[in-house]
């Protein structure tokens, strides 16, 4: 039987939460729901308004982009992956569909719980900000890299 302690361990492996005090993580784990999905069930669909993020405890999930021509799987997520986290930080529609590829066990973290935690412990917000900033810097780097490559290939 899975207990909070194990779940806290899983949460700690997620970069966004890595800097958070274990007691707070335990609280987050306590408040989050452990949900099981059968193969083929959707966690959420592209375009929906998101209200929760998911941590994959075990199993594999497909990330699928729905286009006019049909569904295109773009990636796979495995254990300890954090899915749909953008939705709990800001109000944007889901950018992709996430579907269980195998039997899937996830921790469902509701937006209001996550924000409530930050509300009561502002230092958490700083941790999250730090993590997001480092992601942004990575993405910016990658973007300029890609741009440069694009320029180079154009000029050829």
């Amino acid at each position, binding site marked *: *039987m*899975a*207990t*909070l*302690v194990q*779940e806290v361990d899983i949460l700690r492996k997620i970069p966004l939460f890595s800097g958070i005090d274990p*007691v707070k993580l*335990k*609280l987050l*784990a*306590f*408040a989050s*729901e*452990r*949900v*099981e*999905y*059968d193969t083929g*069930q959707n*966690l959420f669909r592209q375009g929906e308004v998101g209200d929760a993020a998911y941590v994959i405890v075990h199993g594999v999930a497909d990330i699928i982009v729905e286009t006019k021509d049909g569904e295109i799987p773009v990636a796979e997520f495995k254990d300890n992956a954090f899915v749909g986290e953008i939705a709990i930080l800001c109000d944007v529609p889901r950018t992709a569909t996430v579907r269980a590829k195998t039997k899937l066990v996830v921790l469902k973290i*509701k937006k*209001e*719980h996550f924000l*409530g*935690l930050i*509300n*009561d*412990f502002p230092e958490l917000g700083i941790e999250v900000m730090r993590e997001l900033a480092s992601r942004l810097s990575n993405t910016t780097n990658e973007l300029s890299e890609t741009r440069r490559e694009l320029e180079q290939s154009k000029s050829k």
Partner: protein
Amino acid sequence: MEPNLLTYIWKNSKKEQTVALLIILASMPTYFLSLELPKQIVNGPIQGVGFDNPGDIATFMRITLPLPDFLYSGEPIVLFSGVDFERVGYLMALSISFLILVSANGIFKLIVNTFKGRMGERVLRRLRFQLFDRVLRFPLSRFRRTKASEVSSMIKDEVEPMGQFIGDAFAMPLFEGGQAATALIFIFLQDVYLGVLTIVMVSFQAWLIPRLRKPIIKLSKQRQVAARTLSGRLGEIVEGISDMHVNDTSNYERSNISSILNRLFFIRFELFKRNFSIKFLNNFLLQFLQFLFYALGGYFAIRGTLDIGQLVAVIAAFKDLPGPIRGLINWDQKRTLVEARYSQIVEQFASDSLLEPEKQTTTVEKVGKITKGFSISNLGVVDDTGSTLLERTSVEIGVNENVAVVGPVNAGATHFSQVLSRVILPTSGRVELDDTPLEDLPEYFTGRRVAFIDGNSYFPQGTILESLTYVLKHQPIIERMREGKAKTAHEDFLNEARLTRNSELDFDAEWIDYENIGIQDQDKLISRIREILVLIDLEEDIRGLGIRGSLDPKIYPEMCEQILQARQIFRSRLKVLGFDSFVEPFDPEKYNDQSTLGENLLFGTATTPSFQSDNLASNTLIREMLRKQGLEQSLFEMGKEVASTTVELFGDLSANNPFFDQLNYMQADDLPEYRAALARIGEGSLDGATKEDQELVLRLPFAYTETKNRLGLLNDELKDKIIETRKILRSALSELEHPPVAFFDPDHYNPAATVIDNILLGRVASNVAEGPERVFQAITDLMDELHLTDEIFRIGLDFNVGTGGKRLSESIRQKLHLARSLLKQPDILIINQALNTLDAKGQKKLLEAVLDKSRDSSHPFGIIWVPMNPALSQVFDRVLLFKDGELVADDTPAKLVNENELYKSLLAN
């Protein structure tokens, strides 16, 4: 109705009033004898008057005519010469006859009171029924100004005091008046002056008191109106309770009721004051008269004009006077009060446009069908504010036509449909149905042959089936067979109903006229209803209610059996369905991981509060059981663990943090209490803690679910112990006369649970995506497969709609109104902007279904429909277009759409 209460009472109970009077008269001799005897017992055998020598005898049962001393003081007139007794025997004989007389007296009193009481109740019943009957015959327009709760307050409460008065209405004044008159005559005979004096004083009283009472009558009318206003306002506030909440007007309402209560208080207080002053004045006047007797009479006696013997006799006679006079005054006071009430009520129920009773009678003949239809000429309607709703409207509508009536808002389409259905009355012109003016047709014709629905979605409390069949209950069809006691009770009912002119129709008879709608019995009725509900897309909703409804094993034993079978099949298929990982059936031998520990222990649903899960920790029986099983200490430790973890996790959170929603075993406000309790208990054991702390801590494990709370506190050893305790608890509780728990039992139907819970008899894990939905679908499919849908539908029909039908959504209620108007199989169906809670697509779908049905050759019927959306009129054969209260076009929609600008613009919107 008679404007005067006494006339009303006399008219409705003269025979009984006379009998009551005769019984009272017949009881008089025994009454006087029983007053006379004690004197004889004391004087005779006890004091020994006439028993001076041993061996003396006395005569018993020598009966003389009982006349008051002041009427006759000569030798007693002997009626029976009697039997001789010696002293002790005489005492016994007298005492025993005293006992007999007193008993006879009591019995007379009992008879008189019972008789008067019954008489009063009968007149009261008749009055109430008469008032109610008038309510049923009032013109509909009247109810725009009448509050429902005021009507009920008038019929129920305001007439109540009359019941007590009715029995005394005539007997009392005659009896008391007779006594007073006798005494007066005697005074007259003794001395004319004193007689005149008495007459003058009494007349003065009789003149003065009614004058003093006038303001009392006025006040009591005011009290009645104020009390009625109170109940009217209370009714209104309860009906509009949500308005009060959403607008924060609770204090406005409080102040409103407070002001009404204040008015009521001062009216009542004023009444008291005046009543007591009148009482004082009355007593004073009587005593003043006595003063005059002593002073004047004495003066005359001293002067020698009146001899002393006469004066003593007059004063003795006068002593008999105040009682009856006071009685008369009291009676008159009561009379004025109830008279005031009565006239107030009669005023309220007066109406010159009551429907004639013949229009509402039952009929033995079969009601014929409508053959021609409506013929309207020069119809005009003006409302009570004087504005014109309809004018110069002439049109013919055949019986099987389908007609849409449209127009801009308030152009007359709605009112036109209301006139045809008799909801509003025409002010001018003629509306005929089958060549008879509509107002001359009895309700038993229009009520059965014409159906009308509008946006109204009200249903009285009852089952869905009752709500649907209401429209078929015009008169009793099949008498109910009664045997033995029930038969005599029914005969009593009929007898009393006849005596009080109440309705003699049997409420418990079969009222549904199956034959009239072409079916034979209830089974056919159910399938007819089902067809209709399928047609209007409501059948599935009803089955949904059925599967979530409960059923009584006593009424449906077979169905319960089938549901038990369904349970076994469902359980055997859990694996095939892939539900085995998240559906956990209740098994008496296993710990159910999806349930709380308390539920696992109790293993059933509590039927008394003390066994509900919140109260298990303070339930002495449970605690004792836990202690015996050695569980109490370990549960206490577990509770401490839960408490300390929770305090650690949640302690620093603000109380409105959404995390607290996840805390199912504790409230945010409880945290400080638990923190304090933990500090007090420390490392201590159960026995060291106070009773309050013990209960506080033990409450936690009972609400704990491992799969949900995941604190890792349950091990197999503990689970086994709980199962063991569960069994012992069960056998102990089962022995009780009324077991406080309905146990989960795989082999029995649980009447306290719903159908779906009975099939499931277990828990669905909350942590599986769409788990409950999948289970519901699987169980619905299983019902189909086992051919139980009929039964489920039947259970759904037994769903209680709640007051006003509020347990159903408004759209379902509106659809039910449509369903029952179709069930009636009318010749003409009038629909006025009904179904407005449905979306455009839903309205169109229903309209098409109903139109389709109306063209069914076996039962064709006409439709006059005022659609919410004018565009819907295009599917009708004919369209009546109203503008400013006048019919401006009457044609096929195809033509109108080409030629009529107004119609075009209506469709465009």
